[in-house]
């Protein structure tokens, strides 16, 4: 287990090598370094994980301290890694799925400008993400937290020539930064109250230090939640994720589906004792999740870009995780995080395969009939889509999502359960719509499938993991995260499962009616003014972008525009102006005319006399 640090070091070395080479490495060499480092990291994880599971360390935690980062006045955060069941689960997802996505990317990015630059960012991302999940204090976690944000920014703007991509990258960074600042405030508050940022110490002492439900702990939990919603693209900071699809598709798979966007879920799970002391905020987590999964579900239904559909779907699935956290279903939340990583990575990689096969076409309405031309990708989409819809028994999504819905019921959150069901129904609709429109119907485009191990292997492995096989992996969360109300099952459990499945399958059936064949009903709705208005609202994701533009962006631009010439500085010129004016008056008095001198002498004498008399 002492090799734990290598999981960070390998991708970091990969980053250093690739960035120092400054593009002079051949594509093959860059791929070997970039992908190899990830596989080494994944093997290390497997090795460490095997030892961790077979010979568990005392109290289920292994700590490895590298050095003391800062030491000031008793505040001494260390660069130290903390491995427990939760961290191991995350580590496995990040390095395992990450390695597969890197391998796929070595095929996908072939021939692109900046091939090694791409892999250097990807490696740096993985290193930061591993630091984020292994950090044993919140400051180090914040390092990883900001690091992944930077890499996400760099990769969204990877195709730098398009102005729109740069704007999307900036938007992603700034919106998540707003969340990050809330998180930083949370850390300041924690330090003020407890004098430490060490996670184990904080969590141990939290019940003694804070009065449950007090203002302080509520505020702290709220700030941490602010950080979480920023990173995980939940309301109200969700607007960046759809635009983030400007990045290369493997980036969307790794960062904007499988790993980084789940960091918020991880943060809340990691600091769950704090949230348990702030039940109001914990409730809010669930409500935010429910809202997000709903609005994202509706938005996904009307998108035309294959990646944007998946982006809204990601947002919606993370909404389920937040919902689970909010109702105290800690373990199901993380389980869903893992299964989602499998099937969403599969879907994104498949969509990457579709996009390349269709010569960079992303509009599903310009595809059609792809199932004959790229059958492997079609199968991937079917399996991934089935997992997303959570079809019973055969898919991995069934085991995780239905668990969440059951826990929502068991903890008496009927309204949230209703939202979850509506969301599940929407999921079926938009997933089937995507598959029908892109893969069935008349072919409109000549597609060319990829080949080779780098192309096929990741797809097949993820495909297998997205079936019921994936559900055989049980994350070792016992004892790390509290048990939930419905963990032992209950009388109603089967009924809730049957209901959930009924909802999902009803969605599937409706989708078949709506989207297969001629799609007459859909066209009729789209032609109706009310339908058009609604679909336009959904298409623009409920107008949040426009709202923020009016409330924040425009006023800021206006302010910076009027201040740009430095108004305050202009004011200081008044002093100079005053001096000049006095100079003018004084100079005018000295005009060489005897009569004005005589007059001024007379007036001066008169004034002096008056003053003397007055005294």
């Amino acid at each position, binding site marked *: 287990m002492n090799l734990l640090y290598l999981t960070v070091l390998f991708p970091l070395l990969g980053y250093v090598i690739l960035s120092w080479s400054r593009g002079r490495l051949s594509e093959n060499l860059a791929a070997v370094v970039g992908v190899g480092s990830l596989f080494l990291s994944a093997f290390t994880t497997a090795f460490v994980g095997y030892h961790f599971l077979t010979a568990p360390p005392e109290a289920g935690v292994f700590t490895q301290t590298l050095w003391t980062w800062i030491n000031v006045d008793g505040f001494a955060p260390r660069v130290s890694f903390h491995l427990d069941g939760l961290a191991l689960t995350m580590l496995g997802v990040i390095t395992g799925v990450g390695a597969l996505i890197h391998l796929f990317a070595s095929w996908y990015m072939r021939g692109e400008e900046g091939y090694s630059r791409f892999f250097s960012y990807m490696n740096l991302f993985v290193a930061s993400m591993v630091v984020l999940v292994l950090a044993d204090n919140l400051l180090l976690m914040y390092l990883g937290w900001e690091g992944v944000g930077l890499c996400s920014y760099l990769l969204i703007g990877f195709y730098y020539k398009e102005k729109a991509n740069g704007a999307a990258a900036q938007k992603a960074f700034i919106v998540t930064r707003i969340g990050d600042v809330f998180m930083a405030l949370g850390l300041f508050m924690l330090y003020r109250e407890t004098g430490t940022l060490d996670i184990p110490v904080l969590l141990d002492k939290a019940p003694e230090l804070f009065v449950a439900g007090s203002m302080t702990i509520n505020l702290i939990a709220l700030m941490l939640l602010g950080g979480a919603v920023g990173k995980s693209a939940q309301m109200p900071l969700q607007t960046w994720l759809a635009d983030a699809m400007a990045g290369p598709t493997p980036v969307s798979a790794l960062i904007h589906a499988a790993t980084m966007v789940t960091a918020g879920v991880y943060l809340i799970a990691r600091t769950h004792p704090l949230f348990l002391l702030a039940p109001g905020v914990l409730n809010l987590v669930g409500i935010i999740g429910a809202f997000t999964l709903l609005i994202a579900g509706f938005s996904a239904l009307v998108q035309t870009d294959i990646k944007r559909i998946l982006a809204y779907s990601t947002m919606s699935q993370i909404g389920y995780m937040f919902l689970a956290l909010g109702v105290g279903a800690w373990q199901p939340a993380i389980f869903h995080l893992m299964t989602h990583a499998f099937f969403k990575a599969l879907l994104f990689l498949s969509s990457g395969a579709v996009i390349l096969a269709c010569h960079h076409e992303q509009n599903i309405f310009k595809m059609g009939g792809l199932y004959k031309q790229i059958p492997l990708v079609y199968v991937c989409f079917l399996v991934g889509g089935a997992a997303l819809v959570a079809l019973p028994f055969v898919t991995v999504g069934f085991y995780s999502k239905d668990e969440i819905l059951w826990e929502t019921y068991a903890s008496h959150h009927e309204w949230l359960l209703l939202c979850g069901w509506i969301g599940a129904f929407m999921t079926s609709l938009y997933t089937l719509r995507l598959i029908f429109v892109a893969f069935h119907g008349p072919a409109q485009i000549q597609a060319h499938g990829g080949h080779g191990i780098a192309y096929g292997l990741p797809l097949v492995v993820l495909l297998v993991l997205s079936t019921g096989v994936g559900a055989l992996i049980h994350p070792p969360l016992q004892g790390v995260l509290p048990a939930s109300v419905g963990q032992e099952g209950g009388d109603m459990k089967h009924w809730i499962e049957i209901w959930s499945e009924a909802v999902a399958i009803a969605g599937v059936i409706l989708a078949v009616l709506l989207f297969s064949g001629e799609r007459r009903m859909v066209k009729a709705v789209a032609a109706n003014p009310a339908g058009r208005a609604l679909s336009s609202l959904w298409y623009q994701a409920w107008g949040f972008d426009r709202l923020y533009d009016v409330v924040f962006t425009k006023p800021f631009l206006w302010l910076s525009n009027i201040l740009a010439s430095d108004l*305050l500085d202009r004011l200081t010129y008044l002093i100079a102006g005053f001096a000049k004016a006095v100079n003018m008056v004084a100079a005018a008095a000295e005009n060489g005319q005897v009569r004005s001198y005589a007059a001024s002498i007379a007036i001066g004498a008169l004034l002096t006399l008056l003053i003397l008399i007055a005294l």
Partner: protein
Amino acid sequence: MPNTLLPWLIFIPLLAGVLSWLSGRIHAQAPRWVALAGMVAVAVIVCSLWPAAPQTGWWSEFQAPWIPGWGISFHLALDGLSALMVLLAALLGVIAVLASWKEVQSGVGLFHLHLSLMLAGVIGVFLAVDLFLFFICWEIMLLPMYFLITLWGHEAQGGRGRFHAATKFFIYGQASGLLMLLAIVGLAFANFAATRVVTFDYEMLLQTQLNPVVGFVLMLGFFIAFAVKLPAVPFHGWLADAHMHAPTGASVDITGLLLKTSAYGILRFCLPLFPEASQQFAETAMIIGVASVIYGGVLAFGQTHLKRLVAYTSISHMGFILIGIYAFNAVALQGVVVMMVAGALSTAGLFVLCGQLYERLGTFDTREMGGLWTRLPTLPPIVLFFAAATLGLPGLGNFVGEFLVLMGAYKVAPVLTAISTLGMVLAAVFALALVHRTLYGPATSDAQLAAPVAREQLVLLVMMAGLLLIGLYPQPLLDASAGAITQIQQAVSTTTANAAHFGG
């Protein structure tokens, strides 16, 4: 250790300046090497004092009579804080020389004379513990900078010309210097009235008992003088104009050294000399800090001149420093020290990059840039690095400083600190604006630009290594300044024991 070492820290740059001026007649490149040697010698001397440094108190002290009748002596002293600052000065001196290697081609000897003179003044400021001597050094810094801007400056589109900028800089400096002189004389007078001893010596004046009103007025005199140089809003008007027209080397020194002398001045003089008054003033000072953070951040975004953009970012940084200083606790004050060093490196790095871009593109106007990712070898990731440092990315130096400052400040002034975190968002906005206006978007031309030569890369690499080191292992820095910071903090907080804290 020999006590005579300290004066050499000032005399060596003086001597090097004169020699480099003279050596210009022997060989065109000679002045550069002479000036470099002087700065390296300063760095070596400071480093030689490091291993034997005591935990608290002066590392080394030197005193010689100067004007005994007035109680003025040539009194220098060095502790951890000043040692760090002098080392920073030497390092940035080296960087300024290297950054001017190609840019300055006329009057090379004279240029390096001015550069070295200014360095001597700055080091004097960091070492002087006689207030009169301090004032002299403070004034000496101004003159060379005036000439650096007027004689080697750029003419920029939309500016009022380099003479205007230099004059503005000089007037701001003189006016604030006058205030400081009045405050110094006032303090000496108050001390005389109480003790019947005429002295300008720092350690003796520390014992002065001041009546609260007099103390507050004198403190204000010092504070305003420092705030002008910091610069804090609303005294910041000179900075952007000066940077706009200054040659790269001068910009590096303005941002890395001149600004830091004022933060140092507040730490060394304002707080310990006027603890009660500083306590009373703390909230106002913090508000000024918050205003600077936000005003600088908003303005930085609005600039189209690259150097003005960077100049306003440094106003934003200095706002955080002000907030940290007036939080009066060890965490925030240590954060201030880290921020001073890291901020100097990151901003100086950006100015060096501005200079290198200018040498290739012939403009500072960001509207004429864009799409440099492929046109320009090697530099784009470095631009990114310094932008990331500026916005406070963890792992790089600025973050450690900023985080400690805010965390410490939050303890005493949560509301103000919370408002100032808006500056962290603004930092992301302006840093990305800088990156995007230069690197992203369609290229304005296909022509490849010259790759940076070894010298250009070396300058940047040194600063990058420094930022990375401070970001990941700031302990040497923190340890070096801990003793001095504890003393300053105790000087303020002994009087705070019964003074109510604010805003909590």
